[in-house]
């Protein structure tokens, strides 16, 4: 069982999936770091993005990677509007209320998708879907490699935005000291909505990279939401480096879990990590003490 010709592809599989997880989790951790809220609808919004990519391809033959140009700004606008119009209003100063509001959102999105798109699993077939590349003896599909490269590029761009632009400075200022940021003239509500928008833009990008290598169904959001939370909690809520490391770690654990425990029981690894981290080290690997 522990032969390298099995372990090496499993490791690579885990790492490529992990890069996507990291990108999905980045959006979640950004929103948490700035707004201190947990967006339970993150997975459902990713599902919405996946459907957008799917229908763009099906009806207008838009290549998933070209769809980035539509999905990233589109999801950004959706996020900005959601935060301003829906989520920001329901809190009454309690974080649990935001969790309930975003739970409501995820129920709405998932069931509307179920009603209008049906419950079947859909995939797209592109010219490069089943092309393979060989990495040191392990075969990987081209979309998988492209997905992890794209995800890492997005992470780098996001890091640049956070480190080098005024927007990034404003976001970091609010994350550190909300009242102080307001006092020096930062429009806090606007930056909240910008952060939420950027979080969803990450999802838009993730959807474009994910679909050629994956599939979409109304339930797919549910699959991703706990994985994304696990990544974020493992890395430390609000930590960017943590999301990257957490994403790779969860991807690899999932891959090896499936290999060693079988299809069904293998899913348990992610949940066990999630519970264990929350119980024994709630600040995660790279987070600050809460």
């Amino acid at each position: 069982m522990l032969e390298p010709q099995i372990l090496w592809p499993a490791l690579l599989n885990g790492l490529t999936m992990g890069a996507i997880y990291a990108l999905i989790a980045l959006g979640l951790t950004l929103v948490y770091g700035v707004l201190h809220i947990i967006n339970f609808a993150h997975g459902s919004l990713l599902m919405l993005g996946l459907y957008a990519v799917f229908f763009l391809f099906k009806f207008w033959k838009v290549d998933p990677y070209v769809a980035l140009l539509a999905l990233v700004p589109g999801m950004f606008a959706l996020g900005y509007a959601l935060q301003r119009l829906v989520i920001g209003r329901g809190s009454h100063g309690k974080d649990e209320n935001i969790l309930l509001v975003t739970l409501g959102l995820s129920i709405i999105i998932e069931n509307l998708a179920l009603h209008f798109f049906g419950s079947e699993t859909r995939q797209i077939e592109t010219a490069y879907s089943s092309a393979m590349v060989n990495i040191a003896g392990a075969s990987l599909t081209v979309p998988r490699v492209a997905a992890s490269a794209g995800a890492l590029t997005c992470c780098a761009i996001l890091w640049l935005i956070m480190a080098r632009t005024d927007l990034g400075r404003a976001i970091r200022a609010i994350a550190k000291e909300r009242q102080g940021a307001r006092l020096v003239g930062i429009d806090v509500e606007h930056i909240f909505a910008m952060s939420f928008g950027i979080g969803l833009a990450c999802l838009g990008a993730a959807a474009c990279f994910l679909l050629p290598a994956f599939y979409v169904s109304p339930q797919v959001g549910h699959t991703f939401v706990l994985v994304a939370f696990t990544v974020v909690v493992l890395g430390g809520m609000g930590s960017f480096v943590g999301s990257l490391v957490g994403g790779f770690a969860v991807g690899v654990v999932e891959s090896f879990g499936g290999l060693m425990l079988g299809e069904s029981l293998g899913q348990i690894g992610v949940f066990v990590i999630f519970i264990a981290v929350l119980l024994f080290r709630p600040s995660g690997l790279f987070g600050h003490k809460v």
Partner: protein
Amino acid sequence: MTPSAVRSLLFIVAFLAAMALLPAFIRSEFWLTFLILALYTASLGQAWNVLGGFGGQYSFGHAMFFGVGAYAAAVLQVRFGINPWVTLGAAFVLGGATGAMVGALTFRYGLKGSYFALVTLAFAEVFRVLANTFEFTGAGVGMMIKLAPGAANFQFVAKTGFYFTILSIVAAGLMVAWWLKHSRFGAWLTAVRENEDAARALGVDVFRVKLGAITLSGAMMATGGVFYVQMFQYIDPPLAFGAGISVEALLVAIVGGMGSIFGPLIGAFTLALVNHTTTELIGRAPALSMALYGLLLIVMVTFLPNGLIGGLASLARRLGLRQRSGGDE
């Protein structure tokens, strides 16, 4: 007992008496089933209400207790041939034990708020994966209860049998809620909800109070699972441990009014009516009803955080009942 405790007890008794007489006037099988399902949902909501409403600990994974109860009933009957009425007791104990275990772990390490909600969801998923894996629980195929009609087997030929069973479960839930409203333990629990640090400073053993609440809540939820299995004679991992049940339980409590005695009942009947109306208007579209529930959840949290009961109370206050409340409060 204080006068207000006596008054609400009398109200509960009157309500239950009216509900007990109701089947005598209902000839249609459809409406009887409607009542049974609404009461069943109310019982789940009341279980969630004990921990979430009175204790302020929002669980997203109450399906784990429901599933433990459902599988306890199914496994004990199918594998060991134990009478389903006996499994009801076993499920109550196992549900409580699961609650105690999860509570001991999470509250010991101080998880609260959103983190508690997420960790309960993860626990429910762990149970789902386990039930999905082992042959003992029927794995992915699920478990079917053998058809054996008869009141002694908890498989009533007439629907009224199920009606009175679920009415008794709801009655027990109402008594628990009433007790929480008017007992010392309930006061501690409410204090923990309102301000944990202040409660601790006043000498409340926060950990034990929360542990008691989740144990009670888990035991109550598990009885709902047994009822489900006996009513539908089938259970599988997504039905038992999936998000649907968890959402249903928290939804009826929030819509009706968290931390109130009748909140879950009002929420359950409201949702049942919403479901019925949408079905009449646009045909059977369960997904659309669910989407409507989600919308209702957002509207409630945003505009009526105290639920329908809280909304009705403040409406009553606005409509001229105000002069009375001046001295009372």
